[in-house]
């Protein structure tokens, strides 16, 4: 399956022509819309599905990533459905299966849509563009800096984990159930210690290099496409709020 770092900048859709900040804004606004839209209303359901598919298409997310994400979403939400028979239901629901699966279904649909929107958004941003885009948004620079480091260090840790797993594959895992179990249970400790040591070294490097926030300027002009897509995303959010709380439509 594709790793965390491979998702970034993997899309080749038309929206890559937008400036990075506009891409981030659109991603966040569309994500918020999907959180707000009521899945149990037919219109809400159609809008969520339509928006997710359109956004993924415009971002040009690769097919292999789509397959991976569908599998991931399936594995993530399957337990909710498996638990359905044990969910205590109100007698008025009549104990029918449709009502019983309503809540897991809602979580599943909304969750899958959110996963796809996140993955599509990061598909049109490589890490450098994300860094640039985020630092140009009007949010506190400490938060920007923190988010950038979280993303960057997560990618580094993903690489480190990959190296640990390669080493394990090559060096082999002990034979015998007990030995294997003991080994596997010790693994998080080994990993955690490595991560803690690494965090300490990175903190020293950040201190030494003077990692403080630098205000950034950009000469990238805002295009008509940027304005149009951001406006469409905001309109979608407005529509979602209207459907959800004002009970219009």
């Amino acid at each position, binding site marked *: 399956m594709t790793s965390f770092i491979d998702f970034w900048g993997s899309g080749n859709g038309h929206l890559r022509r937008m400036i990075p900040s506009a891409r981030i804004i659109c991603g966040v606004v569309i994500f918020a819309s999907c959180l707000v839209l009521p899945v149990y209303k037919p219109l809400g359901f159609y809008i969520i599905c339509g928006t997710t598919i359109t956004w993924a298409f415009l971002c040009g997310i690769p097919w292999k990533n789509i397959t991976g994400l569908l599998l991931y979403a399936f594995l993530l939400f399957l337990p909710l459905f498996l638990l359905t028979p044990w969910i205590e239901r109100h007698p008025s629901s009549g104990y029918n299966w449709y009502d019983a699966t309503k809540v897991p279904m809602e979580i599943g649909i909304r969750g899958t849509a959110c996963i796809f929107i996140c993955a599509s958004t990061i598909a049109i941003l490589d890490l*450098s563009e994300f860094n640039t885009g985020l630092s140009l948004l009007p949010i506190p620079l400490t938060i920007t800096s923190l988010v950038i480091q979280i993303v960057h260090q997560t990618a580094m840790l993903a690489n480190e984990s990959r190296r640990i797993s390669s080493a394990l594959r090559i060096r082999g895992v002990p034979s015998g159930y007990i030995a294997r179990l003991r080994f596997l249970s010790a693994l998080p400790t080994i990993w955690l210690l490595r991560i803690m040591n690494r965090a300490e070294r990175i903190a020293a490097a950040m201190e030494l290099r003077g990692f403080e926030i630098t205000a950034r300027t950009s000469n990238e002009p805002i295009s008509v496409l940027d304005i149009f897509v951001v406006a469409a995303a905001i309109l979608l959010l407005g529509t979602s709020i209207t459907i959800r709380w004002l009970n219009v439509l």
Partner: protein
Amino acid sequence: MKSALTYCNVSASYRTEDPAVIKGISLDIAPGERVALLGLNGSGKTTLLYSAVGLVPFDGVISVCDIPLSRATERQIRDNIGFLFGIPDDQILFPSVIDDIAFTLERRGIARDEARQKVLPVMEMLGIEKLASHSPHCLSHGQMQRVALAGALAANPPLLLLDEPSAALDPVGKEELAGLLASLNAAMLIATHDIEFARVTCKRFIVLANGVITEDFADPDRAAR
């Protein structure tokens, strides 16, 4: 400037209750002087470098470019030093190569676009200009070493503290790096196990054993022995 780096009776340990890793070090490095710091694993080479930038608590006096190191002068001193860590990917803090190298200049107040332009010659010198837009996660260890080194050299500091700069480089890369370092005017203290690299790059050799300077000489043939 009389001296690029001075240690006067410096002892350092990572925690106060631990025994000192380096003991009673006195050393003076002149501006432009290139010094190799040799010694076995655990002899205190990295600790000696860390103490010069205030990353390890120490007793005694350390001065960089005639400025005594203290909490108040720490930032000013660090701005005068280009530092290369032993594990280069620890010091790469940005998601693209050029962003990371340009950061050295950005935090000195240079605008982003200008900083990106200014670091290009250093990147060309180190042969990493084609990696500018790459993510550091996709680089080999040797390429990361060059990126980290470019970050250290970008601001043209008067003092370079380099921890195993040749460790991950191929023979050609080592030769190129030695030539590059020899062409710089900065003073440098290079912790290394690579005697051949040290001989080509440095004019003075200091041997550290169990945290104490045991030899300080200028004869490259003696270094080889």
